[in-house]
């Protein structure tokens, strides 16, 4: 093993000196299948030309690689490209002089670059109010609904059409419980799916200022009557044993795979795992909504991560990065990535190419996330971009848990999310307003 590593190091040393390639460091957080895709993308790009060499490095989970990049930046040796999760977007945008906008890099390098070619709900999230694209959308996911068809059949529920509204979900859950099912529905990423995406899906504000997209003085709005109604509804389901709480983040996903929970709202990124590991027939459907809310369903919000270009590098290196981003945007490269990972296609051309190839027909459900996102967005649904977002997510978890435990009413918990969230938003605004 050591010998092999030494040989590789030696070989790479020779190739570099022979061709004088410019190396571009790329830090990412992709594991399993998605990690292989990252390495393949770098390998294929490196093979397509001989001036630049993309070197992908796995740096741990999203927050680990982010912490590592902060430390590296302070020490003056940040990578060229850094993959940052969506909740870190506002922090990256507010950190002046740390990154270089992707739009500027493409223009300086003279690459053909049309921001309109990108799916607007995806690219819009990473675009400044001025219209300049700041980071390159790489892996984007959204919130969808999974259901266990075998469990539905056992409970005597029609599996041809998934429950599309929350009243239908409650009804299906009641039938599942009556048939002896212990966990009719559970929810992963509760804040993201039940508050954030829920807001956009019903075209109501999650926060003011276009959910923070238009300025740092945004404030939380999640205690609206519709939000209270939904959380109250879920709390009632929890009391009756229809909704069973299974933990924070994506921890609950395991209970869907094992067959313990029959329905689940979570990320499109869960697709690969279900396809590979579920031992039952299952379906993928759009996120449920309330049919009496005007304008619903609108569109769901984005998750996943984007690629940020760090400042202070050489002009030639930026040229290589621009070329690499052009390569990633090519329809066939993009379509292949989308089909392998389950992440959303970032350009319309890639979506159309995938559709023409018959991929969606052969893999039913894979287009659910895409069709939820490829819609004309409104100011209330374009996305949610708040400062101190990581902490706000935790506040959502903490307060919702108290509702599921019956310690707080929906109104109390949501009021508390607004109050605690606003304190963090005020602090973020204050810490960043000078720049």
């Amino acid at each position, binding site marked *: 093993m050591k010998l092999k590593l030494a040989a590789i190091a030696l070989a790479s040393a020779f190739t570099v000196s022979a061709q004088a390639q410019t190396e571009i460091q790329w830090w990412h957080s992709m594991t399993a299948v998605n990690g292989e895709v990252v390495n393949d993308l770098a390998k294929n790009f490196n093979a397509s030309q001989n001036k630049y060499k993309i070197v992908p490095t796995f740096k741990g989970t999203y927050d680990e690689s982010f*912490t590592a990049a*902060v430390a590296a*930046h*302070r020490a003056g040796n940040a990578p060229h490209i850094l993959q940052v999760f969506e909740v870190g977007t506002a922090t990256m945008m*507010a950190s002046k002089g740390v990154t270089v906008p992707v739009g500027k890099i493409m223009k300086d390098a003279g690459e053909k670059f049309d921001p309109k070619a990108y799916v607007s709900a995806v690219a819009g999230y990473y675009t400044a109010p001025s219209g300049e694209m700041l980071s390159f959308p790489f892996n984007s996911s959204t919130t969808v609904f999974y259901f266990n068809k075998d469990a539905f059949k056992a409970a005597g529920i029609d599996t041809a059409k998934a429950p599309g509204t929350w009243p239908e979900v409650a009804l299906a859950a009641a039938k599942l419980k009556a048939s002896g099912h212990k966990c009719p529905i559970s929810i992963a990423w509760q804040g993201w799916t039940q508050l954030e995406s829920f807001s956009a899906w019903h075209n109501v504000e999650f926060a003011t200022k276009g959910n923070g997209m238009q300025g740092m003085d945004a404030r939380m709005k999640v205690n609206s009557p519709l939000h209270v109604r939904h959380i109250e509804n879920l709390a009632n389901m929890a009391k009756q044993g229809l909704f069973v709480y299974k933990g924070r983040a994506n921890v609950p996903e395991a209970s869907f795979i094992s067959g313990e929970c029959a329905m689940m709202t979570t990320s499109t990124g869960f697709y690969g795992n279900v396809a590979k590991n579920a031992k039952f027939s299952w379906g993928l459907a759009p996120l449920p909504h309330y049919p009496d809310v005007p304008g619903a369903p609108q569109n769901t919000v984005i998750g996943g991560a984007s690629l940020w270009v760090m400042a202070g590098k050489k002009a030639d290196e930026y040229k290589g990065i621009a070329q690499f981003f052009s390569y990633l945007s090519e329809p066939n490269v993009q379509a292949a990535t989308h089909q392998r990972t389950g992440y959303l296609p970032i350009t319309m051309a890639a979506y159309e190419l995938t559709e023409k190839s018959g991929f969606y027909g052969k893999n039913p459900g894979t287009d659910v996330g895409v069709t939820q996102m490829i819609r004309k967005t409104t100011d209330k649904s374009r996305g949610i971009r708040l400062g*101190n977002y990581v*902490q706000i997510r935790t506040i959502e978890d903490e307060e919702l848990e*108290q509702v599921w435990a019956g310690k707080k009413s929906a109104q109390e918990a949501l009021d508390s999310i607004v109050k605690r969230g606003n*304190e963090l938003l005020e602090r973020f605004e204050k810490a*960043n307003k000078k720049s």
Partner: protein
Amino acid sequence: MEKRVVFRSPWLPWVLMAPQLTVIAVFFFWPAAQALLQSLQQSDAFGGSVEWVGLENFRNLWNDPGYLASFYTTALFSSLVAVLGIGLSLLLAVFADRIVKGTLVYTTLLIWPYAVAPAVAGVLWLFMFAPSVGVLSYALRSLGVDWNHLLNGTHAMTLVVMAAVWKQISYNFLFFLAGLQSIPKSLIEAAAIDGARPWRRFWTIVFPLLSPTTFFLLVINMVYAFFDTFAIVDAATQGGPGKETSILVYKVYYDGFKAMDQGSSAAQSVVLMVIVVALTVVQFRFVEKKVNY
């Protein structure tokens, strides 16, 4: 007259102490000073704009009811960990001390958990108590206890306390065993001849003679519960449900390394430092008086 060895040279003692002093300076005083400095600043994640804000980080903490509630959580957690950890290991040490055969096997097994990293300990206990798949939660259910630390705060606290105690028992055990073995057998035998039963022998002879060890362990366990347990909390409950297991040190870790709010995190670690210094002073001034060396 007292016999003392005195260094003739004025600088030799300093040279001999230099390695130790350097280690303390680099790994303790320097970071502590850094924390003090950062607690007075507010900066963005990348440290681009650093602003002096005086005591604002501390004021924000004082105005946060969640942070104040965390003091109560921490007090409860630390006392449970210290009392249970010390009590259980003393019990085990007393038993291990009486065993004639296979002492080595018992002691080795009891020392093992100390080698386990805190995060691993957290995950281990989490698995055993996972509400739907855990072995122990299954057993509890058959006893009529609906174990669910995801929503039940008492269950969650029990879980992290058990993991933290389990991890520390080995350390305490080692010290107690050494302490027990250094008690002269003649004392105990004399008491036995005088007709004292084991229970009475323990309380009147063994326990008082162990008091220096117990006192030392009390300080060490308090420091352990205050500082070294964030990995257990992070792995097992992430401070939940709600904030019911969010002890002070966990919030320091979370705000500093996950949320990138270094000003607040530094302020919290300063608060923590003050508390532990104060606790240690109290222990040395009041508890130590009851210790017989």
